[in-house]
Structures are given as C-alpha cells and as structure tokens.
C-alpha cells in the first residue's frame, strides 16, 4: 500500500492504493465514486470508461498508480451547477438506455470521441463506440444520442 494523489474531476484525492490496484477499484471502493461501473475487467465492455487527459480509457485495465497526477474525468464530473453536459442531455432526450448500467461508460466514450471528432458520421459513431456493450440492445438510440450531442455541441 502506498499513498498517491489522483486528480479526479478537478479535485486532488489522496488515497492509499495497492501497487496492482486498478483505477476502477480505487474510484469505486476507495473514493466511493460508483458512477463508473465494473462490467468485465478485461476492457471488453466499456462500462468502466473514464477520461484520462481528455481521452477515453478503460479504468479496469488502468493501474491507479500510473495515472497519479493526470487529469481524470468520471461521469460524476460532467454535470456543472445542476446543468447536464450536452452528451448527458442527449442520452436523456433520446432515452438511449434501458437498465442504464452501460450508460456512464457510453457517455464517457462519447465525450472523449466528440472532443476529437466533432462532426462524426453514423459509421464513425458505430466504429468508435463498438467497444462499449449495451446488453439491453439500445444501440440505435445511442447512435442517435451521439449524433444529437454532436449537433448540440456545434450549436453551442
């Protein structure tokens, strides 16, 4: 166990972690930030997606000790002063979820994706999001939500 400092959603969090401990486990079990979900532990489902320096990363495969000091954004960090992020708004508007368990990861993947691809085609959306599983099968709505979020962001 060693102390590290994680920069989560703009706040410095000092936390004791084991050397082989995943960022996912630290977020969920030590920092009680449970919006990020465990789905598979092998980087296959995307439920644990967070942003590291603005880029989507699988927190289940990321060692917490390796991202000390880097900018980590989780689903809890998107809403500001009660105002949802446009991607959250878009998912809510399209009701692009059923059980909602994949939703945090879907939204974080989308935020990272749109930052680098502000005007995605439908094919680009599907290709980028293909690493995220929605077992309820709401994919067509999620594609619509991503497209809508992109449009909202362009309009400001």
């Amino acid at each position, binding site marked *: 166990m060693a102390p590290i400092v994680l920069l989560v959603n703009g706040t410095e969090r000092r936390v004791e972690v084991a050397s082989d401990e995943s960022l996912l486990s630290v977020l969920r079990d030590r920092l009680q930030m449970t919006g990020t979900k465990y789905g598979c532990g092998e980087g296959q489902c995307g439920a644990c997606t967070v942003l590291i320096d603005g880029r989507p990363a699988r927190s289940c495969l990321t060692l917490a000790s390796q991202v000390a000091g880097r900018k980590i954004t989780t689903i809890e960090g998107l809403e500001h002063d009660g105002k949802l992020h446009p991607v959250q708004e878009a998912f809510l508007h399209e009701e692009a979820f059923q059980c909602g368990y994949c939703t945090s990861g879907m939204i974080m993947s989308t935020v990272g994706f749109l930052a680098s691809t502000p005007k995605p085609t439908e094919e680009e959306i599907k290709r980028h999001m293909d690493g995220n599983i929605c077992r309820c099968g709401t*994919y067509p709505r999620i594609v619509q939500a991503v497209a809508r979020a992109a449009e909202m962001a362009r309009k400001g």
Partner: protein
Amino acid sequence: MNNHIDHELEQALIQHEVDGRLHWFELDRRDFFKLLGCGVVVCLCTRDALSQESGRGFWQHELPKDIAAWIHISENNAVTVFTGKVEMGQNIRTSLAQQVAEELRVPIASIAMIMGDTDRTAWDAGTFGSRTTPTMGPQLRAAAASARDLLIATAAQQWKVSPTALSAANGRIIDSKSRQSITYGQLMHGQQLVKLITTPAPLTPPVDWKIAGTPVPKIDGRAFVTGRHKYSADLSRPDMLFGKVLRPSGFKATLTSLDTKAAEAIPGVIVAHDGDFVAVAAADSSTAERALRAIKAKWSVPPQPSNADLFSYLKDHVTASRRDEPHIVGSVDRALADADIKLSQTYTVQYIAHAPLEPRAALAEWQGDKLTVYTGTQRPFAVRDELADAFHISSDKVRVLVPDTGSAYGGKHTGDAAVEAARIAKAAGKPVKLVWTREEEFTWAYFRPAGVIDIRSGAHKDGTIVAWEFHNYNSGPAGIGSPYSIANQKIEFHPVDSPLRQGSYRSLAAAANHFARESHMDELAHAVAMDPLDFRLKNLDDDRLRAVFQAAADKFGWRNRKPSSTRGFGIAGGFEKGGYVATCAEVEIVGEKNVHIRRVVEAFDCGPVINPNGLRNQIMGGIVQGIGGALFEAIRFSNGRILNPYFSEYRVPRFADAPEIEIILMDRKDKPPMGAGETPLIGLAPAVGNAIFSATGIRLRSLPMVPNGLPSKRA
C-alpha cells in the same frame, strides 16, 4: 386470485424454474435431519412441491385486497405505490406509475414507486414471464380506481353532497357546482385508505387514457445519465467488508484439500469455510482478491459432457419422472400417408448466457438473527425464502431489497450471490458486499437451455398443412404450439436432465420453438412453391396474427423484394405471452462468409400501448438481443468447465451488429394489455435464417447459425 390466473402463474413458475442451488452449507445437512426429526419439513420449492401447493392460493399468498397495501397518499399529496415487482430496465417503474396516475387522477410527478422490498411490498412471485403488464398493471389500476372512489365518497360525506356531483382531477376532488375543491392529502390527512378494492373496479377504458398510453419519460432517467443511481454493487454500509468466493475447478466438484493459512495471515482477512463453500472478506477488494489467491485448494470434478456430444446427450437423457402429456389432435401418421409433400427436419439450439452487464451482486448485513440483503434479483420474495432456508431462520427475519437493477433477462431468479454474501457476513460479523466477476457470471449463474427439436410435417400441393409433429427435447415448452390451423397435430415437450445448470431466459423456449417452427414453415413454403407469407396466411385463421404479418410485410415492402445471391429477405412470426409479433429481415452476404442483418421491420400487438416510447425501446432491445442467439452466441463447455467465460470469447451483439429497425405498434385499445419484454425477440432468428436461405440457398437449422461465418454451400 382466481383459478385461471393461479394456473397461469403455476405454469409460468414451472417454466422459469432454475435447476438446483449453488450451495448447501454444512449447517444445512446437520439441521435438515434435526428438523425432519421434529416433524418439520423444509420447503425446497421443487417442482413437485410447487404443483402440490399451487392448488390453494399461491403458497398461501393471497394478494391483499385492501387499497392501503398498494397505495398511500400523504398529507402533502405525495402518492406512494407499493409493488413487489422490480425494475431492471424494462421500464415498469414508469409504466406502472402511469397507470396509477391515470386511475387516481394525479400528476405522474407526484408518484413514488416502492418496488421489490419484502418488508414493505405485498408478496409477489417475481418479475418474469411478461406478467407485470397483464397482472400488476390491472392490480394497481384497480387499487387506484378504488382509491379514487373512496376519495370522492369521503369528500361527498364531508361536503354533504352526492358523490355523483363530484369529480377527481389533478390530485383534487372537485365540486363543479360549488366550485370548491380539496387535495386528496388534505381530505385524508395522510391516513390510510381504508377500503377494499372494488370488483370490478371502475377502470378508465384505454381510449380515454390521458397519462397511460403516452410517452412519459423514464422516471429517474437523470440518475442514470449522471451515474447517481445506486445499483446493488454501488451500495455500502459502515464497516462493510468486500467478499470473494473461492470457485471450484469445475461443476459438481467436491473439495479434497484446503489450506487457508496464508490467506488468514494477511491482516484483516476473514476466511469463511462451510462444506465446499470457501470465501474471504477484507476491508478492501484488492486485499480480498490477494487473500483469495493465497488459498490452496484441491477439487475433485466428476467427468461431464461437452458441446461435442450435447445433442445426442439430450436425446438420450429424457427425464422419465416429469413427462408432460403430448398435445394430440387427429392422426399425424394417417395425414402424412395422404400428404403430397412430406418434410422431416431437426433443429438445435446451444446453451447461451444472459450476460447482464451488471453481474450478480449482493450486500448482506446481519443484526442479531435478522438479515437484510440488497441484491439485484427478479424474485425478491423467493430470494428471501431461499435465504431463510439457507440459514434456517423464518422468512420474517429476512428482508430483501432490490435496487433498480442492471438488467437480468431471466438470469436473476436465484439468490446465489445473496446467499453467499450472507454466509460470509455471518462469518465476518460485519456487512459484506459481494460482486461477481464476469467470469463467475458466465460460469456460476445458469443458462438458457440447449435443445433439440424434431419436426415432421405434411402438406397438400395447394399449400394446406395437414400434419404437424413437433418434439422439443430440453429447450422447453414455451411457444411450442402452432398458431396455424392444422387438422392433425402431435406436439410434445421432453424434459431432460441438463448437463449444465439451466433456467429462465428472456422468452424462454419460445425463441427456439419459433426458430424451428418458422424455419420449417419457410421450408414447407418452398416445397409447395408458395410465397412464404402467402403460405402462412393460407394456414392462419387468427386475425391478430394475420394483422401483424400484413403490417410488417407492407412496411417492409415484402411484395417488392428482390433477392440476389448477396441480399436475402425473410419473414417469421408468432404468438406468445399474449403478444402477436411478425418480423421481416433483410440480410446482406458480404464476401464468402459474413452475414450482416441490414434491416428489420417488426409489427407487435400487445393490446393497448401503455408507454409507446418505453415499448419501442423494449422491442428494439429484444430484436438486438435476439441477434446474438441467432447468429453467434454459444456457451462452450467441457467436463464441468465453461471454456469461454469472457466477453472476448463470448460474443454479444455490438453497435456494428445492430441493423436499421422499424417498429409498428398495433395499439389494440379494445384488447387487454400484455407484456412486451419477451415476445418481440422470437421472430428475429427464423426471419434471419429464412433471409439467409433466400440469398444463398443454405438452410441453417442450428442456433447460433453463423458462429464462424456462413458454411460453404457444398459442406
């Protein structure tokens, strides 16, 4: 409950039964004999016990007849609704609230739903079998309509006017003549609504619905897009420990040696050992995992079958003890002798996994001899009884609460994780949270039954089907009957001792039975050289099923389809769980082997639609989930081990697999409302199989159809 509903529920429960239990604690065996010695029999809820009990109410569970058990109105006009049903993505928290809002005449925002809490909600068999909409919906509507009557009567008494002069709207009782009004809360001062539910209740007909029948957004939707919603795995309690279970090296294993010293030497680690059950707990999950790795255990695993011999195994292991009576009309043999066309084919389905994205999880806490467990299950009351059985305490000492759950699809009927968490918590003397890994979820849960289906059929040259014989081995009896009008039939389900633990799954065997039947219908249509749609309609009298076939075909452009060697079109449909479905699929063959489903049009009739937005979501989800079982999902197993217990090796549908989907809602307001969680899935596989045939001439009779791509035509 009347006898008819009782019988339906009994049938549903039998079909949704899950094989066996994961754990029998030592405590069990010792106490079991002690209890027997005292003349007390522990109910293990087997099929036999079930059918014996079902004659008198449901396990002595009568649904409460008083309004207060279902609905409460506070002084500030907040409405609380109590139901033992649970929300796991199917959107019933919203659709049930809509129905109460409709009948009670209150805004939907004033309603809070308490769901799946065994201490606060009336007993419920569970959330499965598409039963919420046809049974709980009417139950809550009746309670709400009766409450409305009670409120009107109370106001009439208070104001000394006739109840007929009063109306209810927007949470108030209104006297239109005197223009006085009062909120329900002010009228009742938050007291219980003491009245029996009126029979028949003065229900609002669907044509007059203003809140039910509309696309009300998902209640708490915001909690899901912000990550604020707490699933079972997200909860914590003071002093809570994280649990981990040591899994055997195979199914049906017995522990032959165990050394836990190294694990126990890690500070803060607690080891729970009870018979073949071994688990650890620690203050953080990382330490618990380390402790688990430190345990040395040896297991003895008996030899067991594998996929390679699965289908012959199933046919060779029919259970003699639980034989269902075959459905026989006329004589298949005689009719076949006179038939112009005779066909005989075998269809198979592999075991598949539910793979809910939220794995099984539970948080258990003992306070003295009282046990509280939060867990994602479809059957909170059955899990309560399972816990009571496992720990030999009475059910009223156990409380099970179900946070809205990260999906289940029939996979969360049992309390496996709950029992494990409670056993570890008992050893630790502290609350314990247990979250299964994906590998555990793929291995230690249970599966959709594999099956073999044999069909023999005969038809006249004009397309009239004259004989239909259908045998299903192990997969299940749901959807086994034919909706087509056939004079001579023999239909039989043959239960089998399954080599893998199996149980309920979204749509049960209806997916397999529809795949076999609707594929075979396509084969027959080709054999008599008829259009597959015309062939179905020729043999179909059911107006509602005809209507969905027609609606789907029209929207799909069935009559104008132009199949080629790379583009195929298929149709399939059926009736199940009170719903009528027809599915049209267009597939593209890319290269030598790849099958892509490009477009699906589905028409669905489940009576009056309660929430069109939620319903479309369910139908779309059913179609997309159906793609997995149709094309590539299969559990591979050998000798008591699952060989592909990871998402990297068990392929589920992803974004690239989802086709363009068009949905037609029939919205039959003149019929009773039925569920929609299952039936929309059953047409997909046969429609796709038939489409593949129309492009390639290759008939695929095994689910999944193309786990390794399209087989070559010569093979």
